[in-house]
């Protein structure tokens, strides 16, 4: 009898999980409170960058995911606006240069052949850079994709494999039988399953409160400016060094002023608009963008690309990254609860980690060896005592 699984959450993680489960012949129902990609997956940038991640379990996962992205358009029979256009981290000050050099050394140890470019090489690679740029890194295999298309493509592919997708169905409770999860309740309807996978990003903790389970995910707000359509200008992922340097040096001691958290991220979409980010701010579940942060992002962008001063911003939006204390997502089974799996907490890596997360969850559910040590990602790392 086919195993029945309910996936809660219709973003990049939920739809990918539904697809890979369906591909394994599992009877899947995906339940989403609003619409596909109506949460953080619909309010993020488009970079799939490896070189900006410090070596460790997340980078290992991301490298596997990056490989999967290469064949994903074919597999999902959909245009994802995927492009392996490479990526660069700029440095504007000596301090940033040194910090990034240390990161590059560690990346090379981890097997990423990240290069270092002089100012002229950087400007040849990406025209329009300001004179004060000291240089940049370069890695050919950083890529970009349209995260909206990824979510929609995974959802449609899952449906083609037989999955059922229920939109506009807000899950209010997990149904339990002793220490076993047996289904979910949304509005007045109860749905039963052998297993429930919660992939609700920053909303995951609210649902798990219904079984007194604390999940340490909090929203970390990021803001992005969207420009008018432009001729081809940015041809790769561009990151400012300031934020990366601070992140690597752990000096990012959570300063109270969100302006300090602003670090440039820049990419150009297939329709020609620029996505100019970004910020990091603990501001609860607030989607309203803040003008002072937009101003700081605008300054970071025009300092590095002076010509952008004459470009118009049409829109700003905010997304809520699912932040965890150790910067790693929470994946896999939950100790003390039968039939409950988690797949959330990807902070800024949700786009990059979407394919591998779905596949990993499907393999674990089907009892297959994922070839990856899942223990760094289990919720139990945060549970001192098993709360039953």
């Amino acid at each position, binding site marked *: 009898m086919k195993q029945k699984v309910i996936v809660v959450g219709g973003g990049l993680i939920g739809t990918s999980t539904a697809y890979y489960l369906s591909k394994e012949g599992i009877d899947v129902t995906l339940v989403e409170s609003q619409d596909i990609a109506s949460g953080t997956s619909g309010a993020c940038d488009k970079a799939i960058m490896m070189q900006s991640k410090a070596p460790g379990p997340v980078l290992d996962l991301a490298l596997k995911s990056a490989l999967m992205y290469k064949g994903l358009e074919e597999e999902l029979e959909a245009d994802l606006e995927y492009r392996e256009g490479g990526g660069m981290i700029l440095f504007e000050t000596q301090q940033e240069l040194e910090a990034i050099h240390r990161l590059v050394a560690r990346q090379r140890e981890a097997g990423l052949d990240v290069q270092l470019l002089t100012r002229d090489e950087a400007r040849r690679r990406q*025209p*329009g850079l300001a004179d004060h740029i000291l240089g940049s890194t370069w890695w050919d295999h950083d890529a970009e994709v349209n995260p909206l298309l990824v979510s929609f493509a995974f959802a449609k592919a899952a449906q083609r494999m037989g999955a059922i997708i229920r939109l506009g169905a807000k899950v209010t409770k997990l149904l339990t039988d002793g220490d076993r999860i047996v289904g979910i309740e949304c509005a007045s309807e109860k749905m039963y399953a052998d297993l429930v996978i919660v992939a609700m990003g920053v909303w995951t903790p609210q649902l798990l409160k219904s079984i007194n389970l604390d999940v340490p995910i909090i929203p970390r707000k990021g803001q992005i400016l969207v420009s*008018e359509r432009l*001729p*081809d200008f940015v041809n790769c992922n561009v990151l400012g060094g300031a934020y990366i340097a601070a992140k690597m040096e752990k000096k990012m001691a959570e300063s109270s002023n969100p302006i300090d958290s602003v670090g440039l991220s820049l990419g150009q979409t297939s329709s020609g608009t620029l996505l100019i980010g970004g910020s990091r701010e603990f501001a609860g579940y607030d989607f309203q963008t803040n003008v002072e942060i937009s101003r700081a992002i605008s300054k970071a962008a025009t300092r590095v*690309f002076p010509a952008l001063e004459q470009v*118009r911003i049409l829109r700003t939006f905010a997304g809520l990254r699912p932040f965890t204390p150790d910067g790693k997502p929470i994946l896999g089974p939950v100790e003390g609860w039968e039939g409950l799996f988690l797949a959330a907490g990807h902070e800024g890596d949700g786009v990059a980690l979407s394919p591998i997360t779905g596949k990993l969850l499907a393999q674990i559910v089907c009892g297959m060896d994922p070839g990856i040590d899942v223990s760094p990602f289990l919720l139990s790392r945060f549970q001192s005592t098993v709360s039953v």
Partner: protein
Amino acid sequence: MMTNTRLFSTNKDEGQRHVSFTFNGMELTGYEGEPIAAALLANGIKTIRTCEVTKEPRGIFCGIGHCYECRAEVDGISNQRTCMTPLRSGTQVSSHSSWQIEEARK
């Protein structure tokens, strides 16, 4: 022949000087201070730009700065709303914006 579609009624704003300006290189005249879109229309010009997406001709639609269909580059600044940008003597209007990467390359 440029059809002139000026309407003459008692309600005209007095004292507006006649000035010349260019649209895509064409030499035209209009009243100083009137919106560029009005001066273009008075010269029989309804097509102000080509839609970047559908490649269709576009012109005035809402007339009060909400829809951006009448946008053009005015004196070097791209995507200005010509229905509310006053005409000055020697104003240069062009349908496509000159924001080019070359300008960004220097």
